[in-house]
């Protein structure tokens, strides 16, 4: 079920009404579990069983880890949990990718191996809910949290419908404590939730799908060489589209959760105002970057292990971060490119140290623009269907196709330019504060007008319900 669908409007209205009408906290939680499984099963009912299976297994394994005596046996149960989760992910998401690469490897040593093509349907959101669930056993193992005694609560923590299929990646340790006592109904919080849902839908339906997606699709789908202007426009359009698409989903999820009395942490913090790549990853898909930081980068030694080892750690983390996004080498290159950027940044910081001139506004702006441009270059690999397309787009961007084709209409370029300008302006204006603080500072009539305009624009787009890009991950 998509947030930007009529089914969700009806579903959400029914769930919210029923939820706040119930007095019993247990009944409310049961309702949310049922609603979450209906939400998920509306895509493909059998996959709801798979979701329940992995959740129940992690619930049981979490209890085993907590009960185990001795570090070794605790580790055995953790390995079982990690292996179970990653093998599910590996089979459904990476099965064909691994077979294709094995075939290629065999061909390199002269063996003509033809693997069967596995007709595997990817369960929606498997990368997200696997991480929701995995965070539980990892945190129980680390001693960060005690295991819950309620399977129902854990099922709800993993499957809570606002964040189930496309994040934010909510750790069980952040969500389970919220299930201990019922939230009190608060009108202000509920309305803020609705406002966030409107903003999220506006970002997705109007900005991403209507104003940017078409141009990005045409540029990345074009079979020939493009001139620099069209190549850059297509890439910049995608940079905006992916932000509004994913941040829009996260904002909707946070808003929907808030309407039900739950707090989910921010997943984006104005990333296109980042100065440097460490800053970018503190602002982009925060729930994934902190997950990888806490469960992978730190256990590998983080940056306390010398320059070379820290650089390798960064590259490993970003390599896996890239692969998490999709079973293709283009995603791996995207991740490695970001790893490479981070290594360069860390090295430069070590060499240059803290300098007063680095705090000058002009320098910050310049560094911010360099960061944005480098992030855009990396997006080419994220969006391109293969390396041929990525190479063609990059060549176009850097003047390699002076006599290439021009395919974008002036209107499309104006849309991209205007949306990108205001997006970057907004990110820079708000980079030090939260959205809530920014809204509090505005006069009420401005907030009312903006909210109404966003709602009208969503209605004007009627039924324009492309799937969210991150669903495929």
């Amino acid at each position: 079920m998509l947030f930007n669908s009529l089914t969700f409007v009806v579903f959400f209205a029914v769930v919210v009404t029923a939820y706040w009408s119930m007095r019993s906290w247990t009944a409310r939680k049961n309702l949310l579990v049922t609603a979450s499984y209906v939400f998920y099963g509306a895509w493909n009912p059998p996959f709801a069983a798979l979701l329940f299976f992995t959740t129940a297994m992690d619930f049981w394994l979490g209890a085993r880890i907590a009960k185990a005596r001795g570090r070794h046996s605790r580790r055995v149960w953790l390995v079982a949990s990690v292996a179970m989760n990653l093998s599910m992910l590996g089979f459904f998401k990476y099965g064909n990718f691994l077979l294709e690469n094995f075939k290629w490897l065999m061909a390199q040593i002269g063996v003509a191996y033809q693997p069967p093509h596995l007709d595997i349907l990817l369960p929606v959101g498997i990368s997200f809910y696997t991480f929701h669930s995995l965070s539980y056993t990892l945190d129980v193992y680390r001693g960060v949290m005690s295991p819950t005694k309620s399977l129902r609560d854990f099922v709800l923590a993993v499957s809570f419908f606002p964040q189930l299929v496309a994040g934010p990646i909510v750790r069980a340790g952040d969500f389970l404590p919220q299930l201990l006592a019922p939230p009190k109904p608060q009108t202000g919080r509920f309305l803020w939730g609705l406002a966030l849902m409107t903003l999220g839908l506006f970002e997705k339906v109007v900005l991403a799908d209507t104003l940017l997606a078409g141009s990005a699709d045409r540029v990345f789908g074009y079979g020939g060489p493009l001139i620099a202007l069209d190549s850059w426009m297509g890439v910049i359009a995608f940079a905006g589209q992916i932000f509004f698409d994913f941040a829009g989903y996260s904002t909707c999820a946070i808003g929907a959760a808030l309407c039900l009395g739950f707090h989910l942490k921010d997943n984006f913090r104005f990333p296109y105002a980042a100065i440097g790549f460490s800053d970018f990853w503190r602002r982009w898909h925060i729930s994934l970057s902190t997950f990888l930081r806490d469960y992978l980068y730190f256990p590998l030694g983080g940056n306390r292990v010398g320059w070379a080892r820290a650089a390798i750690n960064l590259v490993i983390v970003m390599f896996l971060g890239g692969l998490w996004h999709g079973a293709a080498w283009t995603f791996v290159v995207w991740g490695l490119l970001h790893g490479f950027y981070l290594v360069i940044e860390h090295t430069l910081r070590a060499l240059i140290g803290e300098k007063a001139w680095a705090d000058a506004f002009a320098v910050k702006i310049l560094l911010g623009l360099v960061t944005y441009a480098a992030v855009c270059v990396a997006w080419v690999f994220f969006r391109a269907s293969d390396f041929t397309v990525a190479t063609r787009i990059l060549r176009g961007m850097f003047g390699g196709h002076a006599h290439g084709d021009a395919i974008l209409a002036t209107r499309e370029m104006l849309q991209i330019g205007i949306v990108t300008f205001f997006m970057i302006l907004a990110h820079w204006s708000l980079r030090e504060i939260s959205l809530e603080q920014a809204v509090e500072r505005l006069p009420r009539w401005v907030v009312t007008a903006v909210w109404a305009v966003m709602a009208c624009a969503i209605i004007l787009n009627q039924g324009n319900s492309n799937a969210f890009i991150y669903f495929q991950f």
Partner: protein
Amino acid sequence: MTVIVVLIVMAAAGAWELYVRSIGYAPTLNDTEDLWTQTRRAVQPESLVIVGDSRPLFDLDLDELEKGLGKRPVQLALPGSCAYPVLADLANDERFHGTIICSIVPGMFFAPGGPLLETSEKALSRYRKQTLAQRASHHIGMFLEEHVAFLKQEDLTLERLLMRLPIPNRPNAQVPPTFPPYFQTVDRERRARMTEKCAQPGELQTRIQQIWLPLFTPPPPPSYVPIEVFGPNMGKAVEARFQDTAKAVDKLRARGGKIVFVRFPHNGELKALEDRLNPRARDWERLLNDTKVPGIYYEDHPELASFTCPEWSHLSAGDSVEFTKRLVPHLRTALQL
């Protein structure tokens, strides 16, 4: 504040609704992939099915066909599409052994790829992969579309409104041609009827006529494929379509199914363009010859050739009923009913 927001949104939506009704829009369904999927699901093993482009969608009256042929037809024709993927889908559907009325517009039917083929493939993909949530949204959407006039995906979305802005393009920009605005109503059986505004001479009719010409003109060969490669490749693709169509027809017939090809009326400059790009002897006659399928070419029958398409490509709602009545005897003969 929330109450004010709701009031503003309701007032704006109400004003927009009144405005679009005042300029000729009326509530009608959007002809979406979900509506097509719903119709595709209605196909029974012995159904009478219409496939093709927008011409049979406008030109065939389902009531008259039911009266004349004894079965309520299922309307699977898709505007702006190549009919072959749908034809092949029915031929590959082991359950199906009914009758197909297939419209042929050679420029569309023999399209080697691109948007015409994608339209059919997207609809088929939705049919195969439609989720329960999409199905539910479709039913809620139909209810709304039957009551609200501004819910016109092909014309009144923000994107379409922006496309209307008169902003000139770069002289060398390869920008896709414009699509026609709203000029038909569609019901739950996908019966399309041309609006009266379009059926009468006027600005809308002239605008649509002028939109067909670039839409029916094949795009220039891509700059990045040498012409000596592009030409033969196109030739091979068209040749393959003839062969694949013959195979699909054979499959269907092997199960006892029947099929007839129909060339629907079109006129004006559009007819001149189609005749020039796809000479009858080269495409239509060869298709009949290769497949041994009976064909009905409207020009061969004075009672069918006497209709005029107001915007050159489709019959008006009134004419479509009469046209269908006159077509039925030819269909009965061709299908040996």
